[in-house]
């Protein structure tokens, strides 16, 4: 069964460093998403991406964050200068279609620890 894969499973970084979280969405999917879950808090939407551009982003997704689809298979989330409060589990998701009825398929997540 096709699945969304995320690497690495755990990333440790120093405050102020740049990190790139990587995702390989399901191959025929066209919509891509990032969510995050800070320990003890709800899963929160960060950004959605379609047709090589951001279609929606949350207030959390400020100038420190960027997303990219560098080739036909990868989807990345970059945090330019990490802060302690960026420590969280980051989930990538993809869907075949967009909108309210779309089913989003999630990866297992990358745990980011900022020291």
């Amino acid at each position: 069964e096709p699945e969304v894969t995320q690497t690495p499973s755990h990333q440790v970084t120093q405050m102020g460093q740049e990190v790139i979280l990587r995702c390989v969405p399901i191959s025929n999917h066209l919509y891509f998403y990032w969510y995050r879950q800070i320990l003890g808090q709800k899963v929160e939407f960060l950004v959605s991406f379609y047709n090589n551009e951001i279609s929606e982003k949350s207030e959390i997704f400020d100038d420190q964050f960027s997303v990219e689809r560098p080739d036909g298979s990868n989807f990345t989330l970059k945090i330019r200068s990490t802060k302690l409060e960026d420590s969280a589990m980051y989930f990538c998701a993809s869907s075949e279609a967009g909108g309210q009825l779309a089913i989003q398929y999630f990866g297992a997540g990358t745990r980011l620890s900022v020291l």
Partner: protein
Amino acid sequence: AQSVTQLDSHVSVSEGTPVLLRCNYSSSYSPSLFWYVQHPNKGLQLLLKYTSAATLVKGINGFEAEFKKSETSFHLTKPSAHMSDAAEYFCVVSPSGGYNKLIFGAGTRLAVHP
């Protein structure tokens, strides 16, 4: 604003007994509602979804949920719990209006005892 409230952070049941995980939603429009499950070190897996076709929705692994508009609820049930059902369960709403984001509840951790 649309939101989801999961009424229990932890639920503990014995194997073979029924499971009830409660969820209330707040939505100005007809919502799409989902239940996702997360087993340790695994991704979020879709259990079932409601998209206004039928109020009783059947999902995978024997789970089902009933959409009750009058109560703004979408509770998840299973007649008989299995040890493998132990996981975290998320009730999720997809806002109307063409948006793609999902709004998650806080999650309910289900423990199943022998």
